[in-house]
């Protein structure tokens, strides 16, 4: 049996793909078949994160004035977005992102923001928090090498708010409302960040999510706070270990379960629907997709150039 290399480093996107549909995880993150069409939402979200990070680093670390810091963030937004062509039916064009950037800092002024970065012992603001840690040295080893499996992630900031140390994340969206706020209560992405922060002795107990809805006719914002108790974090850790152990079993047996339910059709339909329906998926995969490796530590996709 030929098996693809098993990933040494996992992140929330990969675990989420596996629990949604193991076959999707196999094709997307082990055999590295990716859509040839870049996602506007990922691209715009990346440029947005870079702009806010640049602004905050300039203000909190380099002690620039608020307006100078925002100017550097503005430049970063445009440079990062580049000449990406936004589809006409999507509102996240560069022009709208520029307007949203200006709006964001009027809604959350740097000088008076109740959310402030948490500072390391060396005095560095934790704007951007990246990590790659062994998930479970005892139970979770790589099936080929025996090395500990790592879990990686990146939060926008570790912050303080009302005296509580918090994981902070900015989201761009197309709709804000009750459902938007509720979706973060059980979100594994944030529980994983809290787990990692605690591993570094950073006493995180809550998550702050700020959303900005960029629409053609308006821009809106919202903020939501959700807690992560020790119980939540222990539950996440156990679930994550169990999920990856199941992935190891699937990898060993060569059999990858399929969802055959809502995941096949939700959000416009799974991108792998066509090959998944075929008894010979490889020609579909090779014809419709390009091969790129997702690097969860660097958070970039790297094209596979060799055949």
């Amino acid at each position, binding site marked *: 049996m030929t098996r693809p290399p098993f990933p040494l480093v996992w992140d929330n996107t990969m675990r989420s793909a596996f629990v949604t549909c193991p076959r999707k995880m196999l094709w997307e993150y082990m055999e590295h078949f990716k859509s040839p069409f870049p996602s506007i939402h990922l691209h715009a979200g990346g440029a947005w994160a870079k702009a806010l990070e640049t602004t905050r680093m300039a203000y909190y670390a380099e002690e620039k004035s608020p307006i100078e810091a925002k*100017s550097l963030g*503005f430049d970063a937004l*445009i*440079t990062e977005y580049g000449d990406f062509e936004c589809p006409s039916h999507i509102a996240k064009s560069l*022009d709208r992102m*520029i*307007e949203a950037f*200006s709006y964001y800092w*009027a809604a959350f002024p740097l000088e008076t923001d109740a959310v402030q970065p948490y500072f390391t012992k060396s005095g560095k603001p934790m704007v951007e928090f990246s990590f790659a840690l062994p998930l479970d040295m005892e139970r979770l080893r790589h099936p080929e090498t025996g090395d500990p499996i790592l879990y990686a992630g990146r939060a926008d900031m570790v912050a303080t708010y009302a005296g509580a140390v918090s994981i902070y994340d900015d989201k761009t969206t197309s709709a804000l409302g009750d459902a938007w706020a509720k979706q973060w209560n059980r979100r594994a992405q944030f529980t994983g960040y809290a787990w990692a922060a605690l591993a570094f002795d950073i006493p995180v107990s809550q998550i702050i999510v700020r959303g900005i809805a960029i629409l053609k*006719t308006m821009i809106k914002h919202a903020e939501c706070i959700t807690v992560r108790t020790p119980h939540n974090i222990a539950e996440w850790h156990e679930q994550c270990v169990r999920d990856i152990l199941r992935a190891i079993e699937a990898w060993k047996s060569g059999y990858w379960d399929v969802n055959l339910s809502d995941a096949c059709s939700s959000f416009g339909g799974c991108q792998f629907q066509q090959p998944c329906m075929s008894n010979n998926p490889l020609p579909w995969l090779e014809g419709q997709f390009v091969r790129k490796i997702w690097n969860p530590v660097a958070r970039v996709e790297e094209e596979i150039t060799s055949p």
Partner: protein
Amino acid sequence: MTTPKDLSHFSEAQKLKAQDLKQRILAGEKIPLSELSAFLSASDRILTVEKKKRELPPTDVSFF
């Protein structure tokens, strides 16, 4: 009743300036910080004034 300015859209003048800055940055020009700051300060002032207007209780609303 006065209608507050739509906070989510620049004025025509702001749009033109934003376009100019965007094109120059994309062309690789290093824009002086003072020029970017002037643009963002002007936008900030408009947004902050409009935000405060929205937060004030209305004084010219007819109840019926």
